[in-house]
């Protein structure tokens, strides 16, 4: 990002809000469990359970407890860790695969290796027509107790499809420019052209797509938790907390409102950040 892009970004108030939300989320995930020292998975039967309902907020439990008397604030913060870890690692995986496939397909488009482009795009078509939630659930069921790694791998392995299409289209676009033709006529290796000439010029769209992808990965992780096929209990995830609190919405709204707000703000933050980056890197798109 050069100076003018940085300036554009800083003048864009929603983008700054997004960056702040993302920073806050990161901070909460990193430092939260230090600040709230309660264990997220331990039930506390000793304090404020007189009426047998979840304990209300107190100096001990800042947001009260859930229906199993576990500290709500601690669970939220641990949920932030899970959410962020899954979203970022899955996005890294998806961006890696998507960039590789898109670059390969785009670079072989219109050459004598065009069957490779054709094949890869048919695989992407098949993948996109595949109900991905079903795949995720199947792999979750396969590992029986689906742990963090399984969720990351599944989300990453299904999340690259759209990105590879973007990368392919951009690659084809760049490859038709004169400087690529010049590099080709100088006899440079196609691999070198793809990595040294094309890739740096499509980095912008990749970063923007990746940021938006973090948002959708957070969404996807919470959906899995909500459908009870994500990271398994007792580990606290926002989607799971929402599902567990759902039945008590009328009586204990905080059990639903707290994880909902967490999901909403996290997704909103990354979406705002992604849009801010897009506007900063590609001013014509506004």
């Amino acid at each position: 990002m050069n100076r003018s892009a940085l300036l554009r970004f800083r003048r864009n108030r929603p983008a700054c809000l997004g960056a702040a939300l993302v920073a806050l989320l990161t901070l909460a995930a990193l430092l939260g469990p230090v600040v709230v020292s309660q264990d997220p998975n331990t039930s506390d039967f000793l304090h404020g359970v007189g009426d047998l309902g979840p304990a209300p907020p107190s100096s001990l439990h800042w947001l009260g407890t859930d229906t199993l008397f576990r500290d709500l604030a601690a669970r939220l913060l641990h949920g932030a860790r899970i959410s962020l870890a899954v979203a970022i690692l899955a996005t890294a995986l998806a961006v890696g695969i998507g960039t590789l496939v898109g670059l390969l397909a785009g670079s072989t488009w219109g050459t004598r290796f065009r069957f490779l482009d054709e094949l890869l795009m048919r695989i992407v078509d098949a993948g996109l027509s595949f109900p991905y939630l079903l795949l995720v659930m199947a792999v979750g069921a396969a590992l029986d107790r689906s742990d963090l790694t399984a969720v990351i791998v599944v989300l990453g392995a299904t999340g690259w499809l759209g990105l590879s299409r973007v990368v392919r289209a951009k690659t084809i676009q760049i490859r038709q420019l004169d400087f690529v033709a010049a590099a080709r006529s100088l006899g440079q290796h196609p691999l070198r052209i793809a990595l040294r000439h094309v890739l740096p010029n499509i980095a912008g769209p990749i970063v923007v797509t990746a940021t938006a992808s973090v948002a959708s990965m957070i969404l996807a992780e919470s959906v899995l938790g909500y459908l009870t096929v994500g990271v398994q209990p007792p580990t606290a995830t926002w989607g799971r907390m929402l599902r567990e609190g759902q039945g008590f919405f009328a009586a204990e709204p905080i059990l639903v409102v707290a994880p909902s707000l967490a999901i909403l703000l996290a997704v909103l933050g990354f979406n705002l950040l992604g849009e801010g980056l897009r506007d900063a890197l590609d001013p014509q798109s506004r």
Partner: protein
Amino acid sequence: MIRRAALRLLSSLVVVWLVLTTTFLIHHALPSDPARAVAGPQARPADVDRIRQRLGLDRSLATQYVAFFRRLVHFGPSQLAPKDPDHGSCSPLGRVHLDLGMSFQKRKPVAKLIAERLPRTALLAVAAVSLQVLVGAAAGILAATRRGKLLDHGVIGLTLLGVSTPTFISGLLLQYWLAYRWKLLPLDGWGRTTAEHAACLVLPALTLGVFGASYYARFVRDEMLVQLQQDYVRTARAKGLQPWRILVLHALRNAVMPLVTVVGMDLGALLGGAIVTEKLFRWPGLGALSVDAVIERDGPVVMGIVLVTTLTVIASNLLVDLLYAAIDPRLRSRQALSSR
């Protein structure tokens, strides 16, 4: 033209085959045992083995794979005798039979199960997509014409909130306020009469619609802004055309093209079942069925639903291409040229 159509059909078939094979392999790679899932956790090993044999799961992977495709489409009598052991789970279309097998858990032909649920899912999909196209396009056009004004900022902000809210949150809120507190609509379910179906449809369609309309509004706004900066719009304005004519007949017609693609993809995806929304509102469609089938390891149902989903996605892609040609005359002439 015929060659193009044939190629298209062939590549669609390859995609279907790829998806089915992947599903088959994944489903068989799962460690948990479908026979055990049918028999229950307390069953004796001998009973589990008996059930495995009856379901045909004791055969080799290759045998089961070949059997699935041989059964899928085959020939048989056009009139079925009741309880015909060879064609018990078939849906005959004349002499051609379509057979997806029997559900392990529900003990009904999978084709029947899907035929029963697909119309409900289709109803929800069509309702949701029409809602999001109408509301989304209107909001997007309005925002584009008031670019940088208060209305524009309002639409941008609201729709960003809309696309950042997962359906299980917005659905829960809608359900709580509209159904539980204000008692305007039924909480969930499907109902018995047509009027009840319609009332039950509102909440899930609205839930899907809020998310989709937000997405479409942003999309249409961006597309309209691009179009409004084009030379032809300036020319039209210079000629003194009324603003609404420029907007609707000139800019919108061009902005609508990419939207058609997105609508097609959404419709295809929703026809496979909106899993979360259907679950939340107990809408008895394909999405709810597919969740149960995966959790219960009901192989034939999983394969059947994946087949239907893939076909709907492919069909909607095809429809999009046809619509493109209908909307954009340039594509028609290009096709005419290439077919010569």
